[in-house]
């Protein structure tokens, strides 16, 4: 149960007004009663004293005129509040009364009259004995009178009598009570009304607006910024409301900015993605260039060997033709035929070299995957490179294991050849200055895959370099010798074949293993 300030305040006001009304009633009523009592006492005293005097003149001085006395008593008793007005003789017998049926009765039989009190006033010199009864609604008065009455002998004698009055203040008190009640009720009603109005105002000004603010606050906490409190007025709640609404507005702006930033962020991300895409394209182009450059570099490296390779047999031919030209009679037909055959062989060798070169230079990553004999791949490679090794005194051994001479593999033949050339070139560079120079190309195969293993007399690759050698642009060669693209591109080609290119870390000598599956459509 929630405590409501707007209910507590009117409730307190109602309680206060009720209390105030009651207090007002009691005070007013009490005061009115006092005033009535004092007034009535005076009035009664005045009236009765006057009557006492009249009675004195009527009953004592002149002949007893009971009738006139009765008339005067009746006149006095016309006041409705006088309930009982009697004159009793010395023997307490009612002489005259405001009611005729009381006359000649013993006064004691009339309620209220007490002969003890009558006796007191008869025996004393007091002019009056007047008091209120216990409930203070009645005024009871005993006044002494002297009555000249005939005794039994018919002789008039004076005797002491009593004028008894019973005056009721009840009507007046009731009236005063009613008035007080009315007044306090009116005041209570007014105060209640005021409380109601205050409560209503509190409800209108505070409660309703507070609940609106509460609602708005709840909506805000839910994330709804569309609702506003919009409370009018220059009061504190109005200020709170406008502060609230301002907060909502600011938050709206902030959210808008945030959304804007978000959208911008998306844009930025999109832009960055585009840039990345561009970079990627550039990289791909660079890679393509690099691939080309690497191929050209491999070709360039071979070109030297090639020149030698072709120039040497050409030179041999010129020397042989010179011999034929200079041949004289001492030269036999057999000798001449032999020279001619050697020229033919040499020409054939040159054409083989050119064919290998043509095949090697043609390869590209878009080549189809075709079934190729391992021996063809190796022969093409060796045809180009053999001369170089010979020149440098490098022993090149080609060893087929597992009957690999007869095995075929589905691959991009030229690219695989280029990888092998690359490995052989690296081996060449590694061993050319060594004391012990040899390079071994071994071919292994099983049902699923083919391994080309190039081992050279170099002392292996350090663990730290082993991770780097496949990075593009990494090279240990001088700038004239290598571009650093060879191994990374070789690895790329191997991966496109679902194969691998690794360094055999367990080997004492430098040992590269190119492994490709025998059946392949590439990736």
């Amino acid at each position, binding site marked *: 149960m929630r405590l409501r300030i707007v209910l507590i305040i009117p409730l307190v006001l109602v309680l206060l007004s009720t209390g105030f009304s009651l207090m007002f009633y009691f005070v007013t009523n009490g005061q009115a009663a006092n005033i009535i009592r004092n007034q009535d006492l005076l009035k009664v005293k005045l009236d009765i004293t006057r009557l006492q005097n009249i009675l004195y003149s009527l009953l004592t001085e002149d002949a007893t005129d009971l009738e006139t006395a009765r008339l005067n008593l009746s006149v006095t008793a016309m006041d409705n509040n006088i309930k009982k007005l009697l004159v009793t003789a010395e023997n307490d017998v009612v002489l005259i009364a405001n009611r005729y049926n009381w006359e000649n009765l013993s006064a004691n039989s009339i309620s209220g009259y007490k002969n003890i009190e009558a006796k007191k006033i008869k025996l004393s010199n007091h002019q009056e004995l007047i008091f209120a009864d216990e409930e203070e609604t009645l005024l009871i008065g005993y006044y002494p009178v002297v009555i000249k009455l005939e005794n039994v002998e018919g002789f008039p004698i004076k005797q002491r009598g009593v004028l008894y009055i019973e005056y009721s203040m009840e009507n007046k008190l009731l009236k005063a009570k009613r008035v007080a009640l009315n007044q306090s009720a009116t005041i209570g009603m007014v105060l209640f009304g005021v409380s109601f109005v205050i409560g209503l105002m509190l409800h209108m000004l505070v409660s309703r607006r507070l609940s609106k603010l509460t609602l708005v606050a709840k909506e805000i906490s839910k994330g709804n910024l569309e609702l506003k409190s919009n409370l009018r007025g220059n009061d504190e709640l109005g200020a709170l409301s406008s502060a609230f609404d301002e907060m909502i507005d600011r938050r709206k702006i902030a959210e808008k900015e945030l959304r804007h930033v978000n959208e911008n962020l998306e844009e930025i991300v999109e832009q960055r993605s585009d840039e990345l895409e561009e970079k990627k394209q550039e990289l791909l182009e660079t890679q393509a260039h690099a691939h080309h450059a690497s191929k050209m570099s491999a070709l*360039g*490296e071979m070109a*030297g*060997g090639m*020149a*030698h390779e072709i*120039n*040497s*047999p*050409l*030179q*041999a*031919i*010129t*020397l*042989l033709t*010179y*011999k034929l030209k*200079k041949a004289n009679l001492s030269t036999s037909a057999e000798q001449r035929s032999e020279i001619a055959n050697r020229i033919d062989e*040499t020409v054939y060798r040159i054409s083989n070299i050119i064919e290998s070169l043509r095949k090697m230079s043609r390869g590209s990553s878009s080549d189809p995957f075709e079934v190729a004999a391992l021996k063809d791949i190796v022969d093409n490679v060796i045809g180009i490179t053999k001369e*170089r090794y*010979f*020149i*440098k*005194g*490098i022993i090149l051994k080609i060893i087929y294991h597992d009957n690999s001479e007869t095995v075929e593999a589905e691959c991009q033949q030229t690219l695989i050849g280029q990888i092998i050339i690359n490995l052989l070139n690296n081996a060449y560079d590694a061993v050319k200055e060594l004391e012990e120079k040899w390079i071994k190309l071994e071919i292994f195969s099983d049902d699923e895959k083919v391994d080309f293993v190039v081992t050279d007399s170099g002392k292996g690759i350090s663990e730290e370099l082993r991770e780097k050698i496949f990075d593009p642009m990494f090279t240990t060669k*001088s700038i*004239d*010798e290598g571009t650093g693209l060879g191994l990374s591109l070789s690895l790329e080609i191997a991966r496109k074949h679902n194969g691998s290119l690794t360094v055999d870390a367990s080997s004492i000598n430098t040992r590269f293993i190119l492994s490709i599956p025998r059946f392949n459509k590439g990736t």
Partner: protein
Amino acid sequence: MSKKSKRILIVDDVREILTGISSILEMEGYEAITAENGIQALEVIDNNIDLVVSDILMPEMDGIELCQIIRDKFPDIKMILISGGGRQSNLKSNYDYLETAKKLTGVDTLLKKPFNPEELVSQINSKLK
């Protein structure tokens, strides 16, 4: 008969060239001695050699180094260099390469393979006149 006394050392790592050159020089009446590389050449060379024909690109010791040694040790021996147009990656062009070889060795005659054997013979003849 004076030709007979002329001894020529031929240095080339390609055997068919070595034998080819030596056989035509013998046909021309010279005495031909062969070596497959610079080291072998230095083993056989002495003051009885009149001329050296050396390839540049060879394993073990190349023609340039060989010619430099011969020039220092046997200043009287004439020299002809022959070039196979081999590996030359640290020089811009073949021309630079040949000029560099000439400068390094002081040899003025440099024949590019494939050369005309008659050119070789006439160069030798003129040097050994």
